[in-house]
């Protein structure tokens, strides 16, 4: 039975935790607040430590519009600085990565120490000294950086809680896979998607959408075990779901996938997901880990970064098999990733015009696989940090139920 305009606009008869006002996805003001209240004040994954494996290696990143450079100093420690010359703001490092013993801004040749961020030289400095701008007042801003399980996290808030407190026990199912042997990033690409960053994050917490994936219908959704996995929720908005065994041989061309490259703690055919608030997902399909993180560009555009993790020092043959496992499903030309792109694109096309009022996150199945408890956990944390109820973001503070 169709609905009238009045009926359509009416909030659903559901707890406020079980639906989202779609303006939370595309409103400009909410997006600006998210950058301030969430993206600038939570720990944000920026890279794996292997991306700056050598002394003086650097890698650029962006969080909450802040341009960053992450480097491994001469003391071996990983630090992060704002990648902007203290003089007139030009990017100091222009390439995504490299190895430099000194960082020189190309514009006026101000130079910085990659270990300390200290400004170590300025051409003709006397004109600055004369007005009371000494060199030692011109260092780069250092940003809080911590590393856990080889994962580099950054926080723009100098007063934030320690990373270990933020993560808590949320990665208990992931830890063994990525922190037992030395790992490295074996593949990297980006997608610039026409969607809100939260919509992409939701593809990795909404397992009900897996009916969309043809490969999953053939290899997973007919397995009873698939539906009986428990979601585990944690403070600060994180969650993880139990693993299950995928029947890869049910998809043409994957019959010999069950090889001997399983990561520590995993069997080669197992699949597990961990989500870390606000925008990080770790997916492991037995032989390879995929890490998603996001750089929101606008309310309706997001840059998603995709990293594959493999074992450092393995043979070339094993490496190629692991990479091909990854790309067969999660690659740009794999079976699943294009379908996720389609899902968020179709969603944004319909919703961002402002005529579709609500998204439902109301499935309840005893916290099992296709229960929406993961999304409700995520939105509960969003509501807390934003001081807004996701179901009525312009009317009230988070509901008592949400708190």
């Amino acid at each position, binding site marked *: 039975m169709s609905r009238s305009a009045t009926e359509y606009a009416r909030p659903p008869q559901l707890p406020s935790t079980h639906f989202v006002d779609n303006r939370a996805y595309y409103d400009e003001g909410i997006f600006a607040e998210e950058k301030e209240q969430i993206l600038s004040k939570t720990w944000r994954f920026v890279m794996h430590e292997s991306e700056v494996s050598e002394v003086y290696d650097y890698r650029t990143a962006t969080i909450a519009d802040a341009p960053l450079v992450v480097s491994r100093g001469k003391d071996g420690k990983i630090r992060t600085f704002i990648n902007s010359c203290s003089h007139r703001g030009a990017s100091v490092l222009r390439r995504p990565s490299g190895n430099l013993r000194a960082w020189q801004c190309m514009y006026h040749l101000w130079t910085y120490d990659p270990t300390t961020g200290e400004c170590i030289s300025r051409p003709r400095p006397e004109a600055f000294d004369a007005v009371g701008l000494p060199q030692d007042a011109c260092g780069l801003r250092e940003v809080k950086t911590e590393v856990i399980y080889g994962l580099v996290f950054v926080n723009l808030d100098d007063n934030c809680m320690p990373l270990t407190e933020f993560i808590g026990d949320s990665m208990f199912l992931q830890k063994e896979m990525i922190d037992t042997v030395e790992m490295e990033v074996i593949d990297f690409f*980006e997608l610039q998607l026409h969607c809100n960053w939260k919509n992409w994050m939701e593809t990795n917490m909404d397992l009900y959408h897996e009916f969309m994936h043809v490969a999953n219908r053939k290899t997973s959704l007919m397995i009873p075990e698939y539906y009986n996995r428990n979601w585990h929720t944690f403070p600060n908005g994180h969650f993880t779901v139990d693993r299950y065994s995928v029947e890869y041989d049910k998809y043409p*061309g994957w019959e010999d996938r069950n090889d001997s490259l399983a990561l520590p703690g995993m069997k080669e055919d197992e699949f597990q997901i961990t989500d870390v608030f606000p925008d990080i997902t770790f997916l492991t399909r037995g032989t390879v880990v995929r890490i998603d993180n996001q750089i929101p560009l606008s309310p309706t555009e997001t840059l998603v970064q995709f990293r594959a993790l493999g074992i450092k020092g393995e043979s070339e043959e094993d490496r*190629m098999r692991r990479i091909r496992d990854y790309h067969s499903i999660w690659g740009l*030309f794999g079976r699943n990733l294009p379908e996720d792109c389609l899902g968020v694109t179709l969603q944004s096309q319909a919703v961002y015009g402002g005529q579709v009022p609500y998204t439902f996150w109301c499935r309840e199945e005893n916290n099992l696989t296709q229960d929406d408890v993961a999304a409700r956990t995520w939105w509960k944390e969003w509501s807390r940090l934003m001081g807004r109820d996701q179901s009525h973001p312009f009317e009230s503070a988070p509901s008592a139920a949400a708190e």
Partner: protein
Amino acid sequence: MGIDRDSIADLIYDSCALLDEERFDDYIALCTPEFTYRITAYSEELRKPMEWMYQTRDDLHALLNTVETHEVAIAHLRRVASMIRVGEASNGIVPVRSTLTVYHTWYDGDTRLFVVGTYKDEITTDGDGPLLASREVVLDTRRLASGTHIPI
């Protein structure tokens, strides 16, 4: 016998058109039984080359046969090969390089640039006509607007 550059160029153009039209069996017929297909790119972020796809002829054929079963993200791709440069033949293999531009057009007619890169082909000329012995698609583009089920 000199290299028939026109027939080689026709092969390149046909390989684009047949994938555009999703005539996958006809595309595979352009390839030798030993054909291998790769999509690669150089990662400035990792400072090393990446391989995003590797398929033998039979694997590629099987993969292409699954396309129609999937929810296809891209409405239509248009592959444009140009600046085709034919190298010197050696042991019946001719190396050929083409500049590649691919556009995608969404269901509403909106067209955007999808990827830019190079076809690095090895072409055999021993038979009745030239065939693809191998193709490496080297992409410049590493930030795409979507994934796709259909190779480039």
